[in-house]
């Protein structure tokens, strides 16, 4: 029988764990070599959204502060600028924290 013949030729079972580890390691190194430093997910991440979200949060916060304290328009103006900064921070954070694979 072909099947039994294969069984006989296979290495002993107690080395199985070792072989699995070896194969996993090989797969891992292959994956690291294959991936380039430029992020492939990055294209689909729409980083621009991250920037806009910062501004939206800033404007919403500014309008809220103006509404609470009646400081219109200074809350909106200052929080808009802070929101832009937060947008830049968002973009930087997301791009630097992506896994390298």
């Amino acid at each position, binding site marked *: 029988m072909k099947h039994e013949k294969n069984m006989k030729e296979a290495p002993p079972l107690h080395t199985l764990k070792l072989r699995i580890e070896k194969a996993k390691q090989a797969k891992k190194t292959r994956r690291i070599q294959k991936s380039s430093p430029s992020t492939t997910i990055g294209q689909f991440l729409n980083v621009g959204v991250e920037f806009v*979200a*910062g501004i939206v949060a800033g404007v919403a916060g500014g309008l809220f502060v103006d509404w609470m304290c009646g400081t219109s328009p200074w809350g909106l103006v200052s*929080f808009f600028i802070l929101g832009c900064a937060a947008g830049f*921070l968002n973009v930087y954070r997301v791009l630097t924290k992506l896994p390298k694979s």
Partner: protein
Amino acid sequence: MIDPLHQFVIYPLFSLQIKGLDVSFTNSSLFMVLAAVGTVLFLSGGFKDAQLIPGRWQAMVEMTYGFVAGLLDETAGLKGRRYFPFVFTLFMFIAVGNLLGMLPYGFTFTSHIIVTFGLAMMAFGFVTLVGFARHGLRYFTIFVPQSTPVYMLPLIVPIEILSYLSRPISLSVRLFANMMAGHTMLKVFAAFTVSLGLFGVAPLAINAILTGFEILIALLQAYVFTILTCIYFHDAIHLH
């Protein structure tokens, strides 16, 4: 002319009013239920008679599980494993919901910003709760980056707070915009096919390619939503 935005219309299947509040069961609700039921069927069906050497279906379930588990380990670290059920549920719900939207006569509930914003707020709220549960009031130091000079704090802290608050906005807008834009584009090209008659073969060919591309986007956006949630978990667990 066919309205390419008509596919996003929500209509009630069963009207239901509770104290003047409209809680009708809509087509959107129907597809959310289908997504949840589909996920359960997919996962439990694969393990109905589980083998040591998995068959096709079981392998698919195991690969999905392994994929999300690996993602969580890689981005949030080993301490993030406790939150695997939440992350996996989020991924499956969005992925299955997006894919259901690709079926003819389907409805994509992720193409509505209120749905994605709800999901994003859930992720955001849960991550914040985890942060406070793990660190108590010390969690507020997430707004103070390491080695910031004291005189910079009045400027840095508001920026950090705004950046933190913008997380659910960016999460929800990204998913919503991708799904809505993609499905609108499919419908626009389909309308060209109808109105061009014999020459409609060209937009039809483009649509065939776009459909495949949309399936890629559907899975990728679920992946992006999940990976960003994992990154937020990392921040909440490790505080920088």
